């Protein structure tokens, strides 16, 4: 390797390295500091230990984020495949329709669900006309999961689509020539080839879903607390305790890392990963 070229490379990369150092590494260290050092600057494990009493919330958040992720995957997978087999022109139109809700503010989108799901909301009114209900939909676990699915669905569709789009139609033709029916071809050819897309889709839905707080607050009525709500409460909300908040964040980060590492372990055979 040419040394000069190497230095040039480093120079080009340096703004990014500085950026990462200042805005990622330092804040992370500060989170760790707050989690381990109390008001007087003394080392303590008190905060990390007290995270244990919120294990119920951790389990609930992981469970809800997992359910939302799986449903997102089940909806997105066929959609992304159908999308990738359309003509180029239709593809771009359809992609725009997928992206369209994302142009609207996140809060407004979630607020709209409040007016739809409420006891006096649109859905219950329509059901009422045919003599059903009213059903309690708002302020339930289901509403929170629905909000997660609705808001994060595009993050699942896009990576899946970008991987499937690259699958050569001739590969599918070859599969059918060799005697695979459509379903078999799907599971033996398309699924293995799209694993990188599945992995990044899962990451991009699961991670924001597990730490969301505004969805659970608006659609869960403040009773279905998630880790995100718990952390928000410690910093901006009604139980000011930044040390505990930092400790919870730290534990959450470790849990997410472990889950992600385990996921990628399952898929260790495949090396070229698509990160969007």
């Amino acid at each position, binding site marked *: 390797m040419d040394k000069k070229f190497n230095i040039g490379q480093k120079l080009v990369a340096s703004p990014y390295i500085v950026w990462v150092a200042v805005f990622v590494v330092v804040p992370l260290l500060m989170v760790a500091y707050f989690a381990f050092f109390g008001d007087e600057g003394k080392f303590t494990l008190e905060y990390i230990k007290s995270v244990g009493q919120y294990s119920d919330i951790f389990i609930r958040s992981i469970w809800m984020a997992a359910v939302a992720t799986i449903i997102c995957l089940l909806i997105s997978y066929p959609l992304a495949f159908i999308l990738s087999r359309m003509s180029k022109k239709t593809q771009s139109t359809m992609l725009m329709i997928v992206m369209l809700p994302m142009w609207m503010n996140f809060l407004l989108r979630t607020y709209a669900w409040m*007016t739809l799901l409420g006891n006096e909301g649109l859905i219950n*009114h329509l059901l009422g006309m045919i003599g059903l209900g009213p059903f309690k939909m708002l*302020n339930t676990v289901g509403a929170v999961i629905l909000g997660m699915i609705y808001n994060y669905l595009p993050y699942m569709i896009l990576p899946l689509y970008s991987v499937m789009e690259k699958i050569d139609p001739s590969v599918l033709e070859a599969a059918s020539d060799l005697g695979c029916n459509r379903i078999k071809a799907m599971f033996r050819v398309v699924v293995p080839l799209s694993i990188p897309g599945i992995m990044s889709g899962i990451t991009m839905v699961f991670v924001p879903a597990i730490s969301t707080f505004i969805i659970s607050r608006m659609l869960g009525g403040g009773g279905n607390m998630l880790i995100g*709500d*718990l952390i928000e409460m410690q910093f901006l*909300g*009604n*139980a000011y305790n930044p040390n505990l908040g930092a400790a919870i964040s730290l534990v959450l980060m470790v849990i997410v890392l472990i889950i992600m590492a385990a996921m990628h372990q399952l898929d260790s055979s495949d090396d070229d990963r698509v990160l969007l």
Partner: protein
Amino acid sequence: MTLKRFLTVFLAGCIFAGCLTGCGSNKAAADISVEDTEYYQKFKDDGISINVYNWGEYIPDGADGSVNINEEFTKLTGIKVNYSTYATNEELYAKLKAGAANYDIIIPSDYMISRMISEDMLEEINMDNIPNYKHIMDKFKKVEYDVEERYSVPYTWGTVGIIYDKDTVDLSEDEIDWDVLWNSEYKDDILMFDNPRDAFAIAETMLGYSLNTEDEGELRASAEKLKEQKSIVQAYVMDEIFDKMSAGEAMFAPYYAGDAVTLMSEYDNLGFVMPKSGTNLFVDAICIPKGAKQKEAAEMYINFLTEPEVALEIAEYIGYSTPNAATFELLDDEIKNDGISYPDDEYLDMHTTVFKNLSPEANKLMQDLWTEIKSDK
């Protein structure tokens, strides 16, 4: 009702879009007069701005034919107002503590003011710059949270009571007290305060404790009471109460009298009860946080809010009670005598308690217990 609300959201979007393409002022020229115009000219050409941090829905903003107070202030003084809002005293406290904020005006409640004074978070106000302070009623001067009247100028006051939906509730006014919020008959039709101090106050009243108790056992018992209630509460909310009660989403909600007045003026089906077992009397006062960049301009803003006519606009629009004697004289008799905004002195003396700041230990315990309550299944 639903359709109406749906349209509201849609229209709000349209209005927002309209604002993006050049928001024309829709309010005619000032119909507010101030006592001493000269006083407000000091910064006329300096192009400065102040950052105001207030409760949500707590100032006339030009909606529904009201006067846009901040705009009037800018017109009069040339000082620009950057306005933002919070939902609870604790949120305000956290924001200031985090140090990321830079506000010139904040409007905390009594107990939070004394907490902030004790933690050196407030700037002393130069009362010489606030000639309108003379209008404040004597009973709101030299009060417990600011005995030397150095840090705060009262903005509004009020009590906490129960808002209920007369269409669906089959109880008479006399039968409604705090215990309805624990009545499982109304499961999922109850809203509850989403902040610890107000929520604890209700539990403490029911258990017969002082609203200012610092006793660990009593605080824990109150927390247990709140946990008991959790399974029948539909949602923990603050300003969302406006939406939810007006849309008929719930039957009962504890809330501030002033907001109840605002809601009741729009929706005939809503009623308000002052609990016989007792409640909290609060004062929200204007303060200047430590480190404010434009202290003198902030004092000018405080003086403006204390102008009798400005305070009248505020009192009429937000529905909260005014501590301003000159403003009170200007109010309609109907409001003076409705028994909600200005309860008789007997009720105030017998049944209301003002919050005091708790000791740091009690504050911390209450916050930890609140986290526990909210995270409880």
